[in-house]
């Protein structure tokens, strides 16, 4: 199996009776970027939670690189090579941007082994953090406390944190949510830069972006996959149009 | 923003300037006789500490506030009924050159002070804590107890059972080292005297509900109920026993089960309860008459056992060291070790050199209705057991 394959087999997630994800089966091919779209409440984020280990499955299997990771904890999936950003920004307030990234780099490179040395003493960590910093374009912000960044920059940092472990599978949950109109362009460039060589699942509502960056689209409605295919196919799909525009079938 | 910064800096400065303050405040003057009173002034035992303070201050006031020609000065500290603050505060006062440690209330704090006294070679006077281990054979050289021991009070219970003709005893004992061994002691002696122990329950210290135990007692054929618990636990027990009218066909008694303070907290249910009494204001002797009058003049109230014992012990100590006419601690200790106190408010006390425990008579009383000016519920002294029947030889 090549690194970066991710597949789910009939996965189900339910919250107090409500089936948020109801039998999703899909093979995500290595190196592809999948745009996951669908109306509110379709179960997109829950699907991501199921893949990253944040949501408990009530049925089904998740395979990562051919390995069954269904019962594995979040941190173990990360160590196998799964990265993720969140819809609601989860950065470490009270730390600088660089420190945020160093934390991630440490987990990735050392797993705390030489924990007694000052955190600044690890050139590899710093290098890795700084390279990601450059990748996400926040080098000038390195020493700013993370919570003082603009919303757009915080979203970039969010993506950077997911990126640091150099994951083969990257889950991006609305990386552009709340990003101002003027910043959409650079943010999209960033996404395009970082996805190379990875399997990426992207939840995004900005259709311009999704259409332009995705190699394939997966449309979810009511906890299930309604359709999948190339952007053109999806655009032409009557069912999808109905779901979005609410036109009569 | 400017104002905020100013406020912050001011706060910081204030903090910084308070740091060295204690040194300035507490420059000691060695020109007096300094007594460190470490007692409970807060919490459930705060009442005891306050009464002891009144008794002790009266003992000094009645000799003109002087000892060995120097002014007597008290420092009162609240140990919160905990050993750690007791030691902490005592250490500070010792650093000022204290000549006598007085206290504490709880046996735990007293034991802690005792180890400090031994280590610092400063006399330590105990007038309340009853734990037997405070006055062990060949124990702490500088520690003395002028009040009752629990063992002695348990012996009074045995004497009372014999005298009253009680045949079967059901006991409730606080689950605590001192009270457990006190009960064992009582049980052995009572059995020897032909009394049957029909039951005993160890109740947790601070127990708030005795109803099940009381029910077991009420159903038993015991004619005597022994309560080896004091303070809150004793009051709670008597209150709840009163609600089933247990006193009507069984005699309730215990080592320090009731006095005027506890009776006031118990209410009517205290009537008829028998208890060891450490000191009582009604004792008929000149020394006591003088003390009670002075105490009532000063505080408008009858002295409690805590006040009485504190007064008595401190006066005894001061009488003895006044007689030595010396400022040498060892001389004081040697003199007190062998002293006899003929002028005690309880009649006569005698210090035992072997364990530094005052040998004394044992008082026993019953709660009765009091007429003004006496409290509503008051102790009537019913027995006075001789010292020889209560103390075994050294």
């Amino acid at each position: 199996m090549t690194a970066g394959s991710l597949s789910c087999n009939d996965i189900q997630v339910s919250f107090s009776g409500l089936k948020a994800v109801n039998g999703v089966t899909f093979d995500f091919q290595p190196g592809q970027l999948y745009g996951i779209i669908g109306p509110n409440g379709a179960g997109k984020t829950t699907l991501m939670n199921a893949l990253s280990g944040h949501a408990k499955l009530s049925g089904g299997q998740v395979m990562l690189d051919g390995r069954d990771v269904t019962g594995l904890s979040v941190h173990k999936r990360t160590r196998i090579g799964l990265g993720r950003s969140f819809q609601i920004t989860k950065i470490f307030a009270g730390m600088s941007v660089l420190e945020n990234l160093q934390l991630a780099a440490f987990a990735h490179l050392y797993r705390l082994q030489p924990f007694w040395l000052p955190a600044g003493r690890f050139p590899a960590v710093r290098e890795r953090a700084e390279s990601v910093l450059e990748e996400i374009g926040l080098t000038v912000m390195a020493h700013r406390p993370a919570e003082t960044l603009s919303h757009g920059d915080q979203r970039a940092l969010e993506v950077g944190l997911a990126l640091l472990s150099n994951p083969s599978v990257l889950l991006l949950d609305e990386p552009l949510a709340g990003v101002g109109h003027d910043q959409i362009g650079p943010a999209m460039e960033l996404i395009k830069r970082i996805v190379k060589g990875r399997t990426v699942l992207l939840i995004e509502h900005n259709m311009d972006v999704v259409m332009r960056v995705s190699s394939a689209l997966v449309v979810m409605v009511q906890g299930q996959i309604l359709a999948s295919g190339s952007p053109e196919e999806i655009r032409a799909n009557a069912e999808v149009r109905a779901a979005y525009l609410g036109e009569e079938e | 923003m400017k104002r905020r910064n100013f406020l912050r800096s001011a706060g910081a400065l204030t903090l910084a300037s308070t740091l060295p303050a204690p040194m300035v405040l507490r420059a000691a003057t060695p020109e007096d006789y300094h007594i460190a009173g470490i007692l409970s002034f807060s919490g459930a035992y705060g009442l005891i500490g306050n009464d002891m303070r009144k008794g002790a201050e009266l003992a000094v006031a009645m000799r003109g506030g002087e000892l060995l020609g120097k002014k007597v000065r008290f420092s009162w500290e609240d140990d919160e009924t905990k050993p750690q603050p007791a030691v902490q505060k005592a250490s500070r006062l010792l650093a000022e050159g204290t000549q006598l440690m007085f206290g504490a209330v709880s046996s735990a704090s007293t034991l802690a002070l005792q180890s400090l006294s031994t280590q610092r070679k400063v006399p330590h006077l105990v007038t309340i804590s009853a734990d037997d281990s405070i006055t062990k054979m060949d124990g702490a050289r500088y520690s003395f107890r002028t009040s009752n021991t629990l063992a002695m009070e348990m012996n009074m219970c045995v004497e009372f059972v014999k005298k009253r003709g009680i045949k079967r005893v059901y006991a409730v004992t606080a689950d605590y080292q001192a009270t457990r061994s006190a009960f064992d002691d009582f049980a052995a002696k009572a059995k020897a005297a032909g009394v049957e122990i029909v039951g005993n329950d160890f109740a947790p210290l601070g127990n708030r509900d005795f109803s099940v135990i009381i029910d077991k007692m009420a159903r038993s054929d015991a004619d005597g109920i022994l309560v080896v618990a004091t303070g809150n636990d004793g009051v709670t027990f008597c209150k709840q026993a009163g609600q089933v009218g247990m006193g009507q066909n069984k005699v309730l008694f215990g080592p320090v089960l009731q006095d005027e303070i506890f009776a006031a907290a118990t209410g009517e249910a205290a009537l008829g309860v028998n208890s060891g009494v450490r000191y009582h204001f009604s004792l008929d002797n000149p020394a006591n008459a003088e003390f009670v009058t002075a105490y009532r003049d000063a505080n408008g109230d009858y002295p409690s056992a805590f006040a009485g014992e504190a007064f008595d012990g401190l006066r005894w100590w001061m009488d003895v060291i006044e007689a030595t006419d010396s400022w040498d601690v060892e001389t004081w200790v040697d003199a007190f070790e062998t002293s006899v106190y003929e002028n005690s408010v309880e009649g006569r006390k005698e210090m035992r050199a072997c364990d530094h425990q005052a040998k004394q008579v044992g008082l026993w009383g019953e709660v009765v209705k009091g007429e003004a000016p006496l409290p509503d519920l008051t102790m009537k002294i019913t027995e006075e057991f001789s010292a020889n029947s209560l103390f075994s030889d050294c």
Partner: protein
Amino acid sequence: MTRRIIGQALMGIIIAVMIIVPFFVQDEQWVNLVSLILIWALFAIGFDLVFGVTGMLSFGHAALFGAGGYALTILTLSYGVGFIPGLFAAAIVGAVLAYLMGLFALRVSGLFFALLTLALAQMMYILASNKLRAITGGLDGIPGVPRPDLFGINFYDNHNYYGFIVAVFLIGLALMALLRGSPFGRALRAVQANDVRAAQLGYNVHSLRQSAFIVSGAYAGVAGALLASLIFYISPQMLHWSTSGDVLIMTVLGGKGTLLGPILGVALFELLKEELSQITQYWYGILGLVFIFATIFLRNGIAGMFQGDQDEGDMQ
């Protein structure tokens, strides 16, 4: 940033002065007071690793504190173990007990964690007070806890013992500074700031929480042992939940999550207690008011005052 550094330096200076003064002052009460402050400060900086750094409110630290004290006392008095090995044993006992408590308490978080640690510690208190009286001396405790016997120095002299306490305190402080600055310390902060993200980065959040609790237990154990030997006495009172409450108040007053804040908090607490208790018997109530105000208005305690890092939004 510079403001922060100046604030840190100022705090450091105040603490340094506090530590140095007793060496030059013959006044023993000052020595005693600072000894006490340093011991509680050791306890507080350990406690803050769990509370301020990792973000778990433990109400069970009294048990760890007391367990350390008992470990030293029992080993030295009953088994003839030396003081220094006894002190190490206190650290180990504190850590092991923390591990055991964690087995139960770490299954839950937030307020449940606070209540559960409280209940567990209170159970230890009850055990120590009566069922284990054969080894703990019951409520009467054990008097005569020894002090070190080293290099022929008489540590029963409070000045000399003070030197020993300072040494242990500084070692503890230095280790804690290293730990907090290390990747491990950063990771603990990350757990507090956002545990979901920390897990997503590949950190094992549960074992980080557990490790913090264990290290904190070792600090509490050493502090408890030092306190027992300072006052030559130990009793289950040290395990009572009000002890946990005291260390919590100290830490919040000083500034949780900062290295030096808790030390100042302890100093302020003990000073207020010393000074207020001479003026009024209601000092605990006044302390309560100070604590309430600090909770509402000074989110970062005294340390926040020095560093000026209050979030402006909080003050409204």
